[in-house]
């Protein structure tokens, strides 16, 4: 598309016999287009990174395996049979202000049957993942801590340990296979949690959590409850910029939003759970087993 534009601009210069000023102006336009093309290529590569760049780990397999096992052992040490887990896939400075974690899911303590016939105890992580090719589509996929952190930008985990009652209700959602009823495959990275038009990974987590708490999978009821009690994270970007971003990625849309663009994040989920006594503990767990208790949940995302 841009090549065509450049070619037609060149033709315009030669055919129309532009004056010096016109040629200069056209030259600037061409340079700008070249710059834009370069940026587009770089960003398309980055935007499609889910199946490409994300496939390449930033750390050694040993480091990822050790960290993943440490996270499991920490949660197990707390007696957590179900917890909310988040990872960071990008540098904090690249994220919109107020958002730290890029992916959230639910970990359930499970009996895991292995390929060799043995059974092991550990955490299975129940995710909503964006399709790597069709970015406006998502799938429900179960993986394990080493898979979860394989391509993380930082060996850092966000962990919310729910109250025992909530853990029990969450486990029932999965043992009764009801969590899948909350899945909406129409994906948007900035999905509005107050309607069912789009869903991202953290909104799915919120929906499963609320379904567990309210003992219902009635989507309309869950959305009404979310609107009444849940405070989402404002996406700190101008509407115009977000609108332009949506033009270049199927995974970003504002069609489900009104004037304000707000979405579900790990931090907003942590604040919600604290406010209504649904959680026992929220921490940021890092690779050197450093554990930061998040007392002020307003900082859960932005710390």
């Amino acid at each position, binding site marked *: 598309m841009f090549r065509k534009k450049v070619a037609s601009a060149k033709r315009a210069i030669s055919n129309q016999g532009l004056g010096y000023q016109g040629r200069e102006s056209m030259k600037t*336009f061409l340079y700008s287009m070249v710059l834009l093309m370069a940026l587009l290529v770089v960003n398309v590569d980055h935007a499609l990174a889910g199946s490409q760049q994300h496939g390449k780990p930033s750390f050694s397999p040993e480091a990822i395996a050790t960290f993943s096992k440490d996270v499991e052992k920490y949660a197990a040490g707390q007696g957590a049979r179900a917890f909310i887990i988040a990872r960071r896939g990008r540098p904090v400075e690249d994220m919109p202000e107020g958002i730290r974690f890029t992916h959230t899911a639910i970990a359930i303590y499970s009996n895991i049957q292995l390929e060799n016939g043995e059974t092991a105890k550990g955490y299975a992580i129940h995710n909503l*993942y964006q399709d790597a090719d069709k970015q406006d589509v998502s799938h429900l996929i179960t993986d394990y801590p*080493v898979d979860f952190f394989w391509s993380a930008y930082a060996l850092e985990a966000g962990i919310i340990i729910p109250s025992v009652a909530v853990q029990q209700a969450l486990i029932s959602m999965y043992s009764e296979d009801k969590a899948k009823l909350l899945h909406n495959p129409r994906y948007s990275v900035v999905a509005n949690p107050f309607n069912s038009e789009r869903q991202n990974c953290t909104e799915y987590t919120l929906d499963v959590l609320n379904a567990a708490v309210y003992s219902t999978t009635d989507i309309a009821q869950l959305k009404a409850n979310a609107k009444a009690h849940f405070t989402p994270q404002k996406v700190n970007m101008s509407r115009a910029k977000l609108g332009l971003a949506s033009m270049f990625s199927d995974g970003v849309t504002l069609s489900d939003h009104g004037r304000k663009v707000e979405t579900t994040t790990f931090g907003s989920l942590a604040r919600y759970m604290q406010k209504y006594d649904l959680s026992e503990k929220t921490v940021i767990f890092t690779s050197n087993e450093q554990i930061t208790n998040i007392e002020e949940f307003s900082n859960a995302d932005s710390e």
Partner: protein
Amino acid sequence: MKNSRSTLMLTALFSSALLIQTAAADDSIDHSGKASKHSALAASEGLATTASVASAVVAVPVILTGSVVIAGSAVVESAVDESARNVHAASHQSSVDNNQPLVITETIITADPAPNKVIATTNTTTTNTTTTTTTTTKR
């Protein structure tokens, strides 16, 4: 001159939008299902002496009923029946017992299949394709 300036401004705006798209892009893309992960872990010298790598087939939640943890499909039904589905009722159960440390396997579990399984699957597919082609040719 005016045109140059507006072109540059337009470019800057688009560039900024593209960068924002990158920032806003979710990271929630599946990292599993890559056979190379299993291989990388299995070949990792640092892990070789301390842990094994295994692929998971299926995971069954360990059911929590009061102070007792019950696992396995045979007891799931009764355990679920016993478990208080109502959050308020459940909150009266002993949180001390429920918060006991849990056992975690030292095995590194991945959603990846083992490399030999991937090769076997590929070979089977190839064989099937060949058979089909031969049959088609005969007809």
